[in-house]
């Protein structure tokens, strides 16, 4: 009787563990940084945990700077090293590539120093590294995109604060107070208008901060639910998607929203990606798979398009061509000068064959996309075809 009982007990205790390990609980942080293109070079954070500079004409990797994050293992496991996830799209400014990492670092990488594979940071090349403090939070991860403005870089951190860093040396200019006491994380990017920095939070606030000191200004706005997307400022109005499946338009200085869209009932899912605003029209992609064109002043729907797959990334406008990519990997191009009825008809639909979650970059009629398969795709939106597509397979260095 003893052996079967012990066996039964052991099976009873370990069965949940085995089942949990089989079923899984979601995805590890792997990053969805998009590419940036400058002077024919694509700067992109790879899922291998680093930043690469790739020659767009011949796909040669000019340099790669890899990073790993070492974390404590479980009770029975030792420390493990994993490639550092990067969500923020690299920003190129004055010969430096600025990157924010999920490990809580902001790096200024010199293309010159990296192409020589010198140890990082090379101060004589202007390189620096800034470690975001935890400040009592459980994470200092940088998920939101960095914002470079004049001499400073603005960083939203998972510790709930916004930081201003000196662009040249990486010194701290100021840090804000914790903006979201409930969730203690800021995964949305700030925006600037005039001398004010606007940040929205998961607890449903829009805060205005002094660009000079980081102090909270008198005006703030409280929405009915948390904000899912980063804010967009257009003519004294702030637009942002919320977890309650509405897109809000807020007049700066006012305590009530100007409009929320849809007007009748909520959309099918969250407005996760930031909308774009052009010539009085808001273009907003939604996780319900629809692209909406909305009158910026009134919140009236002009037209919509159903992509049938969630739209995770913001639309991009080049001249009159509006481009969106859905999660299933189809790129749609619209001529926004065309007359649409209630439903828009895309000019082109191009499938890249890989899921898209990263912001994409548009330049000279080409769209640069990093697919979830860790490949770079270049799409000619005028001709409606994929020009190139190649995998980014790189190795991280300790």
């Amino acid at each position, binding site marked *: *009787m*003893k052996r079967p*009982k*012990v066996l*039964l*007990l052991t099976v*009873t*205790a370990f*069965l*949940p*563990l085995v*089942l*949990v390990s089989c*079923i899984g*609980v*979601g*995805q*590890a*942080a*792997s990053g*969805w940084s998009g590419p940036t293109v400058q002077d024919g070079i694509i700067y992109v954070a790879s899922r291998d945990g680093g930043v690469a500079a790739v020659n767009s004409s011949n796909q040669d990797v000019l340099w790669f700077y890899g990073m790993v994050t070492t974390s404590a293992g*479980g*009770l029975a496991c030792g420390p493990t090293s994993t490639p550092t996830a990067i*969500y923020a799209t690299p920003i190129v400014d004055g010969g430096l590539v600025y990157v924010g990492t999920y490990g809580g670092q902001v790096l200024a990488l010199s293309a010159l120093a990296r192409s020589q594979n010198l140890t990082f940071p090379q101060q004589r090349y202007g390189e620096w590294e800034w470690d975001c403090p935890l400040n009592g939070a*459980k994470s200092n991860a940088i*998920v939101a995109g960095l914002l470079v403005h004049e001499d400073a870089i603005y960083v939203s951190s998972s510790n709930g604060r916004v930081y201003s860093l000196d662009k040249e040396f990486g010194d701290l200019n100021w840090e804000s107070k914790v903006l979201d006491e*409930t*969730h203690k994380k800021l*995964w949305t990017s700030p925006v600037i208008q005039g001398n004010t920095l606007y940040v929205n939070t*998961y607890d449903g606030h829009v805060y205005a901060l002094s660009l000079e000191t980081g102090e909270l200004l008198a005006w703030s706005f409280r929405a*009915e*639910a*948390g904000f899912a997307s980063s804010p967009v400022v257009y003519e004294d109005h702030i637009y942002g998607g919320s*977890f*309650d*499946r509405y897109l809000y338009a807020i007049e700066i200085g006012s305590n009530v929203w100007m409009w929320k869209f849809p007007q009748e009932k*909520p959309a*099918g*899912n*969250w407005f*996760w990606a930031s909308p774009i605003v052009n010539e009085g029209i808001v273009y907003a992609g939604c*996780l319900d798979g629809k692209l909406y064109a909305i009158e910026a002043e009134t919140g009236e729907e002009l037209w919509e398009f159903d992509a049938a797959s*969630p739209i*995770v990334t913001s639309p991009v406008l080049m001249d009159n061509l509006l481009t969106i990519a859905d999660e299933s990997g189809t790129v749609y191009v619209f001529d926004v000068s065309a007359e649409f009825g209630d439903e828009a008809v895309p000019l082109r639909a191009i499938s890249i064959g890989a899921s898209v*979650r990263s912001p994409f970059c548009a330049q000279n009629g080409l769209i640069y996309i990093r697919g979830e398969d860790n490949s770079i795709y270049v799409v000619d939106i005028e001709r409606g075809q994929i020009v190139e597509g190649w995998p980014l397979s790189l190795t991280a260095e300790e």
Partner: protein
Amino acid sequence: MEAWNLIIGNPVLNVLIALSHIFGGSFGLAIIGLTIIIRLISWPLTKRQLNSTKALQEMQPKIQELQKKYGKNQQKLQQEMMKLYKEAGVNPLGCLWPMLIQFPIWIALYQAIMRALATTPENLLDLAQRLYSWDIVNQAIPLSSQFLGLDLAGQGNIILAIIVGGTMWVQQKMTQAPAVDPRQGSTSRMMLLLMPLMFGFLSLSFPAGLGLYWAVSNIIGIITQYFVTGGWGYLRSRSPSQPTPVK
């Protein structure tokens, strides 16, 4: 996998988030609320288990008699005991069913905690595809993982582990009759310690939210056991030869 999410994973996730909204955004209270709901749903099984336990307690004198009579012939003893169980309509392994049935709930709850609290940006985005279109659910997102100083998405702490292990030990001790046979006694003692230790250890390794579920579930179990079996059962029993009579 899709069937699992459709039938168990997503319903548990959405109910948990809806409860969180009802409890003013407290995910910890939502877990406690869900634990109570689960215990209510599984009440028929629990009641059956408790009745079996009570019947087993009442049969102890007869079992002890059999042990004295057939102590040297284990095969015969087993046969007679099975006969006795059959006559009384008791399944000695019946008490395991409620626990086995809870496995899918534990797994779904573990997944729901990790998904709802969205520890990574990917998990938050993934959550969007799992939510029902109920306003109550969408208005609660994103959730705060803090509850009574615990990070419900992070690993549990030693206090929680002690509470989980301690309450499990009490619950088991209430139902475990002291064995007359020294060999059976040592097995019983080992089992009485092994499960609480195991779950205490798991509380340190798994998200604190799951530890909270176990602790609350055990406390509810102790309370219901107290009222159904009419007292603390064998909790006060010290000597194997002097089992506490059932009230």
